[in-house]
């Protein structure tokens, strides 16, 4: 019986932090990709906004998001950003030792159609501010995805020690 949900690569950020987390040379032999992350960055606020790019491309991204703060729900488009996709991390203003969990699912990543991305992302802070995000992203590019880059994003320069990211390949047969 074939293995279906297979770890391709993993990263754990060491002391001193990391300016990016990169998965490269992704084989085309799976059906879908899934990236599971636990992130904290050095943005001074409770919530950080890491970015996601494919194949080092900085164009043709769009997104719709639904997020809740614990007191209200909102929907937006990340300000209409087109050079990346954006989700959540705990920033340095969050309660110490807290990291945001996100699940990034990319179906048909090696196909010749534009790429759809689904992200569930949560920031829990055990304090006033906390955020939960449901995200739909699109990379309007028909290239197969061969690399995934995560950057700390808006007003942040590094991911914190103990942040983790694991890339899985999923086979449909």
């Amino acid at each position, binding site marked *: 019986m074939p293995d279906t949900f297979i770890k391709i690569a993993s990263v754990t950020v060491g002391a001193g932090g990391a300016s990016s987390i990169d998965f490269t040379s992704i084989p085309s032999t799976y059906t879908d990709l899934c990236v599971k992350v636990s992130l904290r960055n050095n943005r001074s606020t409770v919530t950080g906004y890491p970015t996601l790019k494919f194949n080092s491309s900085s164009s043709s991204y769009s997104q719709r998001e639904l997020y809740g703060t614990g007191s209200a729900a909102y929907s937006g488009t990340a300000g209409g950003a087109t050079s990346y996709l954006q989700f959540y991390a705990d920033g340095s203003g969050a309660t110490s030792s807290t990291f945001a969990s996100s699940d990034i699912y990319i179906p048909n990543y090696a196909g010749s159609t534009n790429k759809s991305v689904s992200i569930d992302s949560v920031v829990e802070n055990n304090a006033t501010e906390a955020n939960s995000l*449901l995200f739909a992203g699109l990379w309007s590019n028909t290239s197969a995805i061969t690399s995934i880059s995560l950057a700390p994003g808006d007003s942040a320069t590094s991911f914190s020690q103990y942040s983790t990211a694991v890339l899985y390949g999923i086979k449909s047969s």
Partner: protein
Amino acid sequence: MPSTYTPIATTTLGSAQSTITFSSIPSTYTDLVVVSYAQTTASSGSPSINMRFNGDTSAVYSMTQLYGDGSSAVSARVTGQSFAYFANIPNTSASAWGSGIGSIMNYANTTTFKTVLSRSADATFYTIARVNLWRSTAAINSVTLYEGSSGNFSTGSTFTLYGVKSA
């Protein structure tokens, strides 16, 4: 090492069609996961992928959803439906494709009603979280997905059914 997340069946459409069915689903798994990557052949709108179990067309499905369209966050609920709402899909105008991921826990038990938790991601229209209820205690042995605007899924749309074992 046992495989816990196993593909049961997959379909990639070689031509446009309105319906796909996963039948003869074995009862040997703990949970099911359905994954879709699809588009409608329509040139406008964002129809739903509708879902039925065991061919049941009776009005025993209900759904609650939370969705965002890029400007508003909305929650809604429907009852007495003849199908479940799985995921919404984009049309051909933006050359976009939408993903749907749904989990059906404890699908083979004959004691409880069945629940589907699903996520739908279509960056051209909606991001959606849904829960559907099928008010039947029957074990699920088939899952039918069909294009909800009476149209077709585009060529290249892919649907996969996975079985998940807890041990």
